C-alpha cells in the first residue's frame, strides 16, 4: 500500500527537487542561452538572462569559420561506425555465452571486463606508434577501430545481460514444435533481442561520441571529431563566449537528446549489469 502523502510535504519535495535540478542543469542552460546572444551581451555585467536580442548569428559564424559540419560528420562516422562494428562482433559472442554457456563463460566475461580497466595512458605510445606505422594516425577508420575496441567489453556485457533475460523455455518449446536453428533465430530470438540491442546501440553511441582521450591524441586536422574541435576553442576563441556557446550547444545537443532516452540502459551498461 502506498502511503498517503500530505500536499504540504509534496510541495516541499517539489520545490527542493526543482531548485536543485535547475542548479545542476544551469551550466547547460546558460550555455544554450549565451549561444543566442551577441558577444557584447554575452559578457554584459550584470549578466543577461532572457531579455536580450535573440540572434542566430553565432551558429552561422561557427559553421563558416571552422567548418563545423566536417567535425560533426567525423563524430557521426566515428561514433556510429564504432558502434555498428562493435555490435557485429559482440552480438554473436554475447549470444553464444547467454544461450550456450560453458564452464569458462564467466571467466571470459570477467576477462573482457578487465580489458576495459586498462588505463589508456598506459598504452598510449604503443597505439600511437602502431598508428604511425600503419598510416592510421588522424584517420576516421583508425579512430573507429580504437573506439570499437575500448567499448567492446561494455557492448558484450550489456547484450549478455539482455540475452540472459530471454527465457530458455521458449526456445525448447520452439524446438519441440520442430523449428530449425535458422527459424529459431529468425522468428523467436531476434524479435525478443531487438530492444536490448537497440539500448546497447544507444548507450554506445553516447560513450563513443563523448570519448575524449583517444580522439584528442590520435587526430589532428583531418579526422578530428567534435571533442577535439571544441578543445581547439580553448583560447583565444574560447573568450568569445557566444561563439563558444553556439559550438558547444551544437556538439552536445544530439547526445543530450539521445541520452534522455537511454537513462535506464545507462545504469545497466555502466555497472556491467550489477545494478539494474
Amino acid at each position, binding site marked *: 500500500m502506498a502511503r498517503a502523502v500530505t500536499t504540504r510535504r509534496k510541495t516541499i519535495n517539489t520545490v527542493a527537487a526543482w531548485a536543485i535540478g535547475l542548479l545542476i542543469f544551469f551550466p547547460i542552460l546558460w550555455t544554450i542561452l549565451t549561444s543566442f546572444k551577441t558577444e557584447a551581451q554575452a559578457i554584459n555585467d550584470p549578466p543577461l538572462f532572457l531579455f536580450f536580442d535573440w540572434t542566430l548569428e553565432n551558429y552561422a559564424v561557427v559553421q563558416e569559420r571552422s567548418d563545423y559540419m566536417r567535425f560533426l560528420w567525423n563524430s557521426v562516422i566515428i561514433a556510429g561506425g564504432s558502434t555498428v562494428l562493435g555490435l557485429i562482433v559482440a552480438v554473436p559472442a554475447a549470444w553464444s555465452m547467454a544461450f550456450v554457456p560453458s564452464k569458462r563463460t564467466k571467466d571470459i566475461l570477467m576477462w573482457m571486463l578487465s580489458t576495459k580497466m586498462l*588505463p*589508456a595512458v598506459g598504452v598510449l*605510445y604503443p597505439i600511437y606508434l602502431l598508428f604511425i606505422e600503419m598510416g592510421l594516425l588522424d584517420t576516421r577508420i583508425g579512430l573507429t577501430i580504437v573506439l570499437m575496441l575500448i567499448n567492446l567489453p561494455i557492448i558484450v556485457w550489456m547484450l549478455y545481460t539482455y540475452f540472459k533475460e530471454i527465457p530458455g523455455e521458449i526456445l525448447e518449446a520452439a524446438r519441440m514444435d520442430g523449428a530449425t536453428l535458422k527459424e529459431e533465430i529468425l522468428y523467436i530470438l531476434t524479435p525478443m533481442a531487438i530492444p536490448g540491442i537497440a539500448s546497447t546501440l544507444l548507450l554506445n553511441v553516447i560513450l563513443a561520441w563523448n570519448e575524449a582521450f583517444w580522439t584528442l591524441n590520435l587526430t589532428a586536422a583531418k579526422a578530428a571529431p567534435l571533442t577535439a574541435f571544441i*578543445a581547439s576553442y580553448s583560447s583565444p576563441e574560447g573568450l568569445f563566449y557566444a561563439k563558444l556557446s553556439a559550438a558547444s550547444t551544437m556538439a552536445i545537443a544530439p547526445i543530450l537528446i539521445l541520452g534522455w532516452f537511454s537513462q535506464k540502459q545507462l545504469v545497466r551498461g555502466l555497472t556491467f549489469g550489477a545494478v539494474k
Partner: protein
Amino acid sequence: MATQHSRSAARIMMAPAVILLLGWMLIPLTMTLVFSFKRYLPLRGGDLGWVGFENYVRFVSSSAFWPSVQTTLIIVGGVLVITIIFGILLSILLDQPMWGQGVVRILVIAPFFVMPTVSALVWKNMFMDPVNGLFAHLWKAFGAQPIEWLSDASLFSIILIVSWQWLPFATLILLTAIQSLDSEQLEAAEMDGAPPLSRFAYITLPHLSRAITIVLLIQTIFLLAIFAEIFVTTSGAFGTRTLTYLIYQRVLESQNVGLGSAGGVYAIILANIVAIFLMRIVGKNLDT
C-alpha cells in the same frame, strides 16, 4: 542441453570478440613493457638499448612523481566524496513523491551527456574566468574580489567540474537502487516510532551499500584516467598534474617513451588493484 555441435558453433561465434580483445590487450601491453626497460627517445636517437629497471626508479624518484600522486588522490578522493554524499541525498529526494519527477530527473542527469571538453571549456571560460565569468560577476555583486579559480584554487576548480560531470551517474545508480527498496520496511519502522535519521541509517543506507560500492569502484577507475578536463583547463599547470597527465607529458610532450612507459606500468598496476575489487562484486552477481 547443449549439444557438441552447438558448443563448437558457440566457440566460433565468440572467437572474433575474444581475438580482437586479446590483441588489443596483449600487443600494446607487451610494447609498453618492452619500452619501459629501454632508453627510448624517438626524437633524440630512438632506441638506445636496454637499461633494466632504471626507468622505473627514475619515474618514482623524479620531483614530479609524488606531487602527481598527491594530486591524483586529492582529485579522485574529492570527487568521490562529493558525488557519493550528494548522490545519496539527491537520490533520496528524487525518490519522494513530487510533481514533475520525470523532468527533474532529466535535469539532474543531463551533465553526464555533455562531452568532457565542452564541460571543461564552459566552466573554465564562462564561469571561472576572473574577468567575465559568471562567478566573477557574482563576487563583484557582493563587493568581493573575483577569484582566479583555475590558478589560485585550481584543484578545487577541477574537482568541481569533474563532480558536476559525475554526480548524475552516482545519483542515477543510487536512485535505481533506492527504488528497489521495499517501502513497507520503512513504513513499519516509522509506525514503530523510528525517527527519520535512524530509518536512514539502519534501513536505507545498508540497502544502498552495494550500489555505493559499485559507484565507488567504477568512478575510481574512470577518475584515475581523467584527461580532457585537465588538458583543456590548466594543461597540468598550477598543481593539477595527475599521474595520468604526467605519463602523457613524458610520452607525448617530452617524447621520453621509456620513462613514460614505466609510468604507464605503474598506472596499470594501480588500476588493476581497484579493478580486482570491482570484478569480485560484478562476478558475484553473475552467479545469481
